């Protein structure tokens, strides 16, 4: 699954040089660019963006304002700031209202930036996978509870004194039960 990174800066050469660097380094993520915060928000509306890197000083909406907006609307999108204005004020604002995960100052080394992006994307993927797994587990246990209510004792595997599983007969045939389980699990996967 390819990740998408959105670069936001009002200086076109910043965008082009970063994109060029990432592509040449065979980074696995795709990049999109926006020259203003407004344009960035339009792209975020249309596409799943995994990570945003924004400049601070831009006409109209500033970088910190954009990050705050993204934090609110797309909390899973990782947020970076890359600014020529490496002042404490900007950093504090970016952390407090934008909850950013990285603060870079210009000039920064592309290799460092790329490595951070990779780490953040891996971390994001892992977090997403863990979330997914947790959800699956939750669903399955809910299903099991439901089955137990319908077929009391079904989740309880009984063995006889020689260690063989003993199955007691009830109204529902074993064949029917297996089919139902298969259907459920397929539905959950989808």
């Amino acid at each position, binding site marked *: 699954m390819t990740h998408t990174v959105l670069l936001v800066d009002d200086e076109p*050469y910043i965008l082009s*040089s970063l994109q060029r660097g990432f592509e040449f380094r065979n980074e696995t993520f795709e990049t999109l660019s926006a020259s203003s915060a407004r344009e960035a928000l339009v792209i975020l509306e249309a596409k799943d963006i995994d990570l945003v890197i924004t400049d601070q000083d831009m006409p109209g909406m500033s970088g910190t304002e954009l990050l705050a907006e993204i934090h609110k609307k797309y909390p899973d999108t990782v947020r970076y700031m890359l600014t020529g204005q490496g002042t404490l004020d900007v950093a504090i604002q970016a952390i407090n209202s934008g909850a950013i995960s990285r603060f870079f100052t210009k000039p920064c080394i592309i290799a460092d930036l790329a490595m951070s992006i990779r780490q953040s994307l891996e971390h994001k993927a892992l977090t997403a996978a863990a979330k997914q797994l947790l959800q699956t587990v939750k669903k399955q246990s809910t299903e099991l509870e439901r089955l137990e209510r319908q077929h009391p004792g079904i989740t309880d595997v009984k063995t006889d004194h020689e260690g063989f599983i003993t199955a007691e007969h009830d109204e529902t045939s074993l064949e029917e039960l297996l089919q139902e389980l298969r259907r459920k699990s397929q539905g959950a996967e989808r």
Partner: protein
Amino acid sequence: MDQDHSSQKGRLLIIDDNRSIHDDFHKILDQRDADVALAEAETAFLGEAALFTPRITYDIDDAFQGQEGLELVVKALHERRPYDVAFVDMRMPPGWDGVETIERLWERDAALQIVICTAYSDYTWAEIIERLGRNDNLLILKKPFDNVEVSQLAVALTEKRHLARQAAMKMEQLEALVELRTQTLQETNLEVECLLSAISSLLIGIDGEGMVRRWNASTEELFDISADTAIGQPFGRLDIDWVNRDDMLKLISIENEHQSERHEIEYYDRHHAIRLLGLSVYPVKKAQQIGGILILGRDITEQRLLELKVHQTQKLESIGQLAAGLAHEINTPIQFVSGNLDFLQQGFGRLEQLLDDHDRLVDALLLNQCPEALLKVVATTKEVIKLDFLKKEVPKAFTEVIDGVRRVTEIVQAMKSFSHPGSQKKTAVDLNKAILNTVTVSRHEWQRIADIKTDLALDLPLVPCFLGEFNQVMLNLIVNAAHAIGDVVDTHHPNKGMITIRTHHDGSWVRVEVEDTGVGIPDSIHRRIFDPFFTTKEVGKGTGQGLSIAHNIIVNKHGGNLTFETQKNQGTIFKIDLPLQDIKGMRV
């Protein structure tokens, strides 16, 4: 005033040895009798018109000898009620005759009016005049008297004496008044002199001939020349070491006789240090012609140094404010320059792989070996190193690097010439270039908020100007324009504003305009915006010094004008007018 005079009351003295003459006089002049006599006389001689004859009543005293008459006159003087008229008989045996009596009387009361009464005279008129030495206050009445003549003489002479007395009194009053005024004037003069010598300013008076007429204590001290030495000398020849004699000559030559002029002039003091004087020259008009000039002023060397320091401080402050923005302005191109250099370096590293493959291919060809396998290697390398991508992107990367370096160079150069301390004297400045520099160094202050459009006259002549200070003014105006627009443009109104800078040339003036599309300046503060420390900006955004200093720089240091036009929510235009001709007291 010798006594309380009723102008209607006359005092007469009759000196005659003949009692019947006395009776005649009384008959004619005594009140009751006189009325009757006059009425008769009027009817007889003058008709109705005589009714308007002034009615005077008389106190009449009689003396029968000259001696006795003199005693009465002395007594009357002593009582401060002197006689107005004396009728003196010419012959009065055995005592003094009329002429001697008159001599004696006049010795005591020179203003006494005298009528000599005589039937026949022992003297001719000429002899009498000669003896008495005067012919005023003296009339001759020939006997026998005509009643009307006597009456009229008495009236006329009494009136004459009264008038003379009044005139004398008036004269006395006037003299007293003049004396009083003279005294007051002298006191005032003295006071003015004291004041003039007490003031700490220089005060030099020069007359129409160029001679020094006034030289106060401060002037004495400043030039180390005493008033005694200076006054009466031509100002131009005094022992003062002017830095530029022409300036001094300009100082004392008056161009416009109705206007005062301000000059700044330098001289070397006794330690041979240059001092600066700020002088005002006032033409003094006397009656019709110019009566010379009055020079007032003081040593402004320290003040000028302080001003320079304040300006320098403000300039450093603005450079300080710019520094953060400039760092950003430089960091941005450095970012893409370094990014691209990284790409170019890596790219070349990969190209070297391809070059190695090529070298091997060439070596093989030289040995006539079949390079089939090598060709495959080359093809693979081309793909691995992304040769197509390199071919496409390397030129772009170079373009960006070159542009970035150009931008940094431009900023650094603009910064250098912007913050150049400038000379103490005006130099011929290319304002267009100075404006573009200032636009560059201030980019960070406006570029998020506004675009700057410049409309600069190509034929703009060089302008005599203090470059550093002009830059400072431009910076203040641009930053103000950006702030004014910033108050309109925000997240909700994302459209940038526009700052337009124009220059043009009109005769002996050059105009620079800075127009913004900002909020405008409210009417209520129009009069205050050039006041020092007046600001509407929040704390930390402005000190209230910018426009005040700009005004001082343009108006006081360049002899120009700084004005503005503004419209609410439409914007403001600041207009700088600078003279091409160097004005008096400043040199290029």
